[in-house]
């Protein structure tokens, strides 16, 4: 646990560490060739290095090796030597900071203060020391204005990356590793993030290694450029100026898809077109289902063979507008209509079209290609939409099977995916996935094509292929609408521009999704130890298991209602939260009344079943009992932050913190997953999967959606696990900045719960309704 020892004695500013590799290789499990082979390099302490190379050259693998998060097993392992600060990198003797692409998985905890502290806690740094580091770190990354209790889920992508950086700074690492930190954030957020990184390494003296496709942002701020060779080793070791002056090098890097400063890939000229109108919008206002945030009114026309680019600030609702134009969301107000030519016999509102009719007319390409994959092979994926495309008012099939086969073949060749025809779409590389997701939509040859941030995170080669493909579509008089920040892309398509004004309600990303970390307010019960509350509820409700009677149940329900003010809940708020319980209670009561044990007078004769006085009494008792066991939980849930519950479980009940914090980290992704589930529903309509069909088709469609959700969730979890490991998680004793305490008041709450349980049972025995169920 040398890392822990280091953390405790760390000075406020730490010297950088040097790195040296001698004949270093890394072999991944189940790969034919090593990811890195025979690497020899020395990086002195405090140097700022930009690491480049074609995809597959092992850049990420090298960063992960330096961070000590690569896993050695029977099949995977290193050869040669890789030293960080003179020690074996895999021994992790020094804290190393690692930041990856996906902002969602760089944040671990649900509250800003906790997240900054996470890494330092794992290193065993004294809580007092960590508390001093938090404001410094937040200040350094420009998030000083955020409160510690601010929910991390509400931050934008760029802010999340900066928060992750703050967490890394609080660990006082001698080495910072950044793996495409700006690939998934919007261009305006890149300079502030870059500046925060550079300021931090310059003031702490830490060594920096950045892997990045887009060099413009970094080239002038680093000391050295290393280019990895695909076969292994270092191809070039240069001063950053060479990226501007050395034409041969520039050409080589451009071929490898690297975005060198001042380089725009060549594309064909766009044909001049003045085609027929396709879509017309007048004061169109859009919103995601059930949300209050609405886009500013927009008016425009889209014509065949021309491109329209939608721009606007973050949170303006550009994606929402694109989904509406794609016939996936219903407009809130204003006019939005397809021309007679596009509608081809159907009503003018695209939202009213069935999925099969929609894919033949308007195609939508989502930002995340994986959201759109619905089959197991590339070939099936391409055939999917054309097989379902319908034309005309009579909705006859647009293509017969032979035509579909021909189209699939043509697209496979056009995209250079012939060799991958039988591959699973999820296993393709990032660029291949992007091309495939566009092609699956083009396959049904829609007259209008809508794309959401198609060039986000793409290397220069994929960018050029994509632009070229779309220019061909324009020539074939398809209309293109793209949401993009990318000016070069807009210029390549010769696009008109629509700037969407900021949305009308609050900023950020308000969501109708359920939250696990909802604000708990400052009611009396919110200050009670979560375990005490939990114990009290167990004490009050578990005795009810022994009996089915209405008296004991009624006592517990009444007591719960009386305690609502302690939880800061009004009766209205309580019912809004608890109504499903009522429904469940009624349902349980009805079930027993129908098939429960009969006795007494028959009230209703339903053939096989009777409803009798006895079964009705049993039903009422069962329903009340179900309610009584459930409602007290509302008191706990509405006054407890899961993170505090986790802290108490781990500190006071000694539940292993790896499992508690791992579970909490997973739970933080809940809101994201709900959002993703909703997006998947829309993406599947965009692929031609309707809400109708046989039971078999519908079950199949739902299973496919579940599978897609799990794929996303598992990938995210893998990245999140890497983040947590890089922050020293799970290696030894950790400290906690929030100490769970158990006061006399907590004891009183626990005792009250147990007393209530006893009182309920006593009351039932006294009233003579108690009946033991066993």
């Amino acid at each position: 646990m040398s890392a822990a020892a280091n953390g405790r004695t760390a000075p406020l500013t730490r010297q950088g560490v040097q790195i040296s590799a001698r004949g270093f290789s890394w072999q991944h499990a189940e790969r034919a060739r090593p990811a890195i082979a025979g690497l020899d390099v020395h990086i002195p302490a405090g140097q700022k290095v930009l690491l480049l190379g074609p995809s597959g050259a092992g850049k990420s693998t090298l960063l992960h090796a330096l961070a000590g998060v690569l896993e050695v097993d029977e099949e995977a392992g290193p050869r040669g030597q890789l030293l960080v600060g003179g020690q074996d990198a895999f021994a992790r003797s020094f804290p190393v900071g690692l930041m990856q692409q996906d902002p969602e998985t760089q944040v671990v905890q649900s509250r800003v203060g906790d997240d900054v502290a996470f890494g330092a806690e794992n290193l065993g740094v004294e809580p007092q020391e960590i508390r001093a580091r938090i404001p410094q770190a937040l200040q350094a990354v420009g998030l000083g204005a955020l409160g510690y209790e601010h929910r991390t889920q509400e931050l934008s992508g760029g802010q999340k990356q900066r928060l992750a950086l703050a967490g890394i700074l609080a660990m006082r690492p001698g080495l910072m590793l950044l793996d495409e930190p700006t690939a998934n954030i919007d261009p305006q957020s890149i300079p502030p993030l870059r500046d925060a990184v550079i300021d931090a390494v310059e003031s702490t003296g830490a060594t920096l290694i950045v892997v990045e496709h887009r060099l413009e942002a970094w080239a002038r701020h680093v000391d050295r450029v290393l280019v990895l060779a695909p076969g292994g080793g270092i191809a070039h070791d240069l001063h950053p100026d060479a990226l501007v002056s050395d034409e041969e090098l520039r050409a080589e890097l451009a071929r490898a898809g690297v975005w060198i400063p001042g380089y725009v890939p060549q594309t064909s000229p766009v044909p001049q077109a003045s085609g027929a109108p396709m879509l017309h919008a007048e004061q169109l206002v859009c919103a995601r289902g059930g949300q209050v945030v609405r886009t500013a009114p927009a008016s425009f026309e889209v014509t065949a063979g021309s491109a329209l680019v939608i721009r606007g600030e973050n949170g303006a609702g550009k994606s929402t507008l694109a989904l509406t134009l794609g016939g996936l969301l219903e407009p809130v107000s204003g006019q939005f209509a397809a021309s007679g030519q596009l509608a081809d016999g159907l009503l003018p509102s695209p939202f009213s079209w069935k999925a099969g009719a929609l894919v033949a007319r308007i195609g939508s390409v989502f930002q995340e290609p994986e959201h759109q994959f619905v089959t197991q092979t590339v070939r099936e994926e391409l055939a999917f939409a054309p097989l379902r495309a319908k034309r005309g008012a009579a909705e006859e099939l647009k293509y017969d099977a032979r035509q579909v086969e021909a189209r699939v073949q043509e697209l496979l060749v056009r995209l250079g995916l012939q060799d991958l025809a039988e591959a699973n779409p999820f296993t393709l590389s990032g660029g291949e996935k992007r091309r495939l997701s566009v092609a699956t939509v083009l396959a049904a040859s829609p007259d209008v094509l809508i794309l959401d941030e198609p060039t986000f995170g793409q290397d220069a080669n994929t960018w050029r292929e994509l632009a070229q493909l779309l220019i061909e579509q324009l020539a074939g008089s398809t209309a293109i609408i793209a949401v993009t920040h990318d000016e070069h892309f807009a210029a390549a398509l010769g696009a008109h521009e629509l700037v969407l004004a900021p949305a009308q309600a609050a900023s950020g990303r308000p969501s109708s999704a359920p939250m696990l970390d909802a604000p708990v307010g400052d009611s009396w019960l919110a200050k009670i130890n979560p375990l005490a509350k939990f114990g009290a509820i167990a004490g009050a409700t578990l005795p009810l298991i022994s009996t089915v009677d209405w008296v004991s149940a009624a006592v517990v329900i009444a007591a719960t209602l009386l305690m609502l003010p302690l939880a800061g809940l009004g009766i209205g708020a309580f019912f809004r939260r608890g109504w499903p319980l009522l429904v469940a209670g009624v349902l349980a009561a009805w079930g027993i009344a129908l098939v429960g044990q009969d006795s007494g007078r028959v009230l209703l004769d339903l053939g096989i079943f009777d409803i009798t006085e006895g079964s009705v009494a049993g039903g009422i008792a069962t329903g009340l009992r179900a309610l009584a066991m459930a409602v007290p939980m509302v008191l706990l849930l509405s006054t407890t932050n899961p993170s505090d519950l986790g802290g108490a479980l781990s500190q006071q009940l000694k539940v292993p913190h790896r499992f508690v914090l791992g579970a909490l980290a997973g739970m933080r992704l809940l809101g994201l997953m709900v959002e993703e589930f909703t997006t998947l529903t829309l993406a599947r309509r965009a692929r031609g999967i309707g809400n109708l069909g046989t039971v078999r088709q519908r079950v199949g469609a739902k299973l496919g959606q579940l599978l897609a959700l799990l794929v996303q969730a598992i990938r995210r979890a893998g990245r999140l696990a890497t983040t947590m490991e890089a922050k020293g998680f799970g290696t030894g004793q950790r400290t906690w900045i929030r100490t769970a305490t158990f006061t006399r008041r907590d004891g009183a709450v626990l005792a009250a719960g147990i007393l209530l349980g006893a009182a309920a049972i006593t009351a039932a025995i006294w009233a003579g309704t108690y009946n033991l169920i066993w």
Partner: protein
Amino acid sequence: MSTSRTTQRSTWRVVDIVIASVIAVASGVVFWAWSASYGLFSLAFTAFPPGTALLTGLWLFPAVLGALIIRKPGAALFCEVLAAVVEALLGTHWGMPVLISGLVQGLGAELVFALFRYRKWNLPVALLAGLGSGLFAGLSEAYVVGSVAEYTEAMKLFHVGATAFSGLVVAGLLSWWITRALARTGALSNLASRRAHLEPAFAVRK
């Protein structure tokens, strides 16, 4: 520390813990998304409420799925309990008893995997685990926790049988199928189940 980085078959790595958690949370999302349709489905059983037991399997799949994917002791229990916690935290269903159910259901599946000493993860074992989970759920509802304590004896037996059957089909078969489909996408590449789609359905693993 370098020794701790070599995996042992039964110890949980950080990635196992986080992926298991996320499977449980994703299952919680599925519960949440389907709770509305569950209401509709159960209305279909108004004429014969014990039939709703046939839908219970849907609440059991995290146990089997988690174990088939993570392949570590305790995975079934961990995933099912955490999914129940998520469900309780979302506040849509039954409250405290949901935690007890989670524990009981997870235990039913866990015992089956333990019986095979955490070495077999094929279709028959998955089906048995689903059955075990359903059986435990049904028995506890009918005889221990007593949510259907007032049923007649015949109805209780029906309830147990229907829950077990539902566990076998939905939790067992469905989880096995999903695990293979996931492995095919490459999403399980850093887990013990990464080759699940290549394993025979019935034979023993290696």
